[in-house]
């Protein structure tokens, strides 16, 4: 019982330094199982860095991250956290899907091969099954018929949808989205957000979305996190954070973004 009550993601007191610059200051964040959380904030506020610490693409200087109760990126020994070897960190990432701002599709592989690569090579799924599931996922993101097309022949919106299918192919419990629509032409943003909305509404998956799309955050997220200067300034349901912010900084940011 307590396992299901426990938050899916528990970040506690995260500090992160780049040289002498501190980019995260004691960040706490809990995300419940199946919850969709949007992280907003000005550029340089540390929101992408926070997201990237959650699957240990970035190390941390202090604090801890647990996903599904498991310590991410580190092992506790003698009261200290020891960084995991790459192999172990890779194993932990199997349950955490990630979608990047610039899609990062593998250019030498077709859409279907992009989606099926990790299930076949990492999870050792049978190629035939992995490819069938990949085709299913591509159809779900509206790309049926594009299986054999290389990324360079797809629009940005299509590439990002392949990237979402690629992350979903590992059947992750958590999906991280790092500004998934920031690199897209305005008319292509909608198709990607629609796929993400579908994921969030189907349920079962825990989503953390770093975004500048305030409208999307308002409609889809269960809670919104506002970050500024490496700190979480305000957390709450979208109706509160976006429409009646308590903090002056949140208000200032929103009025700048929404004009």
């Amino acid at each position, binding site marked *: 019982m307590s396992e299901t009550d426990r938050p899916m993601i528990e970040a506690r007191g995260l500090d992160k330094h780049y040289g002498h610059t501190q980019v995260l200051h004691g960040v706490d964040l809990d995300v419940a199982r199946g919850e969709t959380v949007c992280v907003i904030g000005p550029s340089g506020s540390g929101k992408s860095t926070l997201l990237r610490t959650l*699957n240990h*693409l970035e190390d941390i200087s202090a604090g801890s991250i647990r996903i599904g109760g498991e310590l991410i990126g580190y092992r506790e020994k003698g009261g200290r956290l020891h960084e995991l070897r*790459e*192999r172990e960190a*890779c*194993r932990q*990432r*199997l349950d*955490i*899907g*990630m979608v*990047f701002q*610039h899609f*990062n*599709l*593998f*250019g*030498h592989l077709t859409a279907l091969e992009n989606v099926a*690569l*990790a299930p076949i*090579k*990492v999870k050792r799924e049978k190629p035939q099954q992995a490819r069938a599931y990949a085709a299913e996922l591509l159809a779900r993101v509206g790309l049926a018929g594009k299986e054999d097309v*290389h990324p*360079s022949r797809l629009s940005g919106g299509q590439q990002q949808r392949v*990237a979402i299918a*690629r*992350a979903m192919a*590992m059947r992750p419990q958590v999906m991280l989205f790092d500004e998934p629509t920031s690199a897209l032409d305005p008319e292509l943003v909608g198709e990607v957000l629609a796929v993400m909305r579908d994921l969030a509404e189907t349920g079962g998956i825990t989503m953390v979305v770093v975004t500048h799309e305030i409208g999307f955050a308002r409609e889809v997220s269960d809670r919104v996190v506002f970050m500024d200067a490496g700190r979480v300034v305000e957390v709450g349901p979208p109706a509160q954070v976006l429409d009646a912010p308590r903090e002056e900084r949140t208000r200032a940011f929103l009025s700048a973004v929404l004009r």
Partner: protein
Amino acid sequence: MTSTEHAATATAPAGPSPRRTPRRPARRRDVVPVRHWGRGIATAVVVLLVVLTGRALVTNPHIEWSVVGDYLLDAAVLEGLWLTLKMTALGMVIGLVLAVLVGVMRTARSRVVAAVAWAWIFVFRGVPLVVLLVLLGNLGLFVTDLSLTVPFTDVELWSRPVKEVVTPFVASVLALALAGSGYMAEVVRSGLISVGTGQREAAKALGLDEARTLRLVVLPQALRVIVPPLGNELVGMLKASAIVSVIAGGDLMTTVLGISGVTFRTIEMLLVASIWYLLVIAVLSAGQFLLERKVAER
């Protein structure tokens, strides 16, 4: 340009029209492309020059083509050619292995490792091949024995005199490999960094470990950048191998020079060598073309 001309003729119908076609609405206009007189002239000049050169080569009384024919398939020449091919192949393989090693070291996090790789590239790209060749060919002058010992002790595991180990052939292969490795290491490095960090991160996020990331994601994409210059390097190494004749490496060039020293048919023998080099390069170029097309498939 053409659209404004059309507009001009349409709006000024009364003026004297320079066009040949009369202004009748439904009449189909003949299109006369620009005549490129220069191209015709250039073609004629080039053809003339080629014919003259060819004629001069064929009819030159000092070149006996029958000698070229006689020696083209001469056993000694073929053996020299075989040695040239072996040398180039070995030099390329060893050079490439070194290049991958040095190229990866060059991108290493450790500054010392990266600096050693940098120095390697600097030295072997900078020292002329002839110098390297003569140096290695005369290794016996300043290093007498090659021995494998346990470091910092006198325990000797294996020892041979240099003259036995570093034959002219070995020296040639080593020189070609070392000189090639410097250049090829840069090629490998540029190929590796041409694959963006985003690709590695995406692979990482999918749970691919470093070995799989390199094999499945980075290398296949790096090859597109690496293969074309490597093909050029192979052709370059084949041609450069002719320099081996300065230490009597026994290659094609050494052989033809040796024969011409006896028969005094220098030009004919050089023509024999040229024909063989060109033949091999033609085959290599065809291979390179096919390989590049395969790697570029996407």
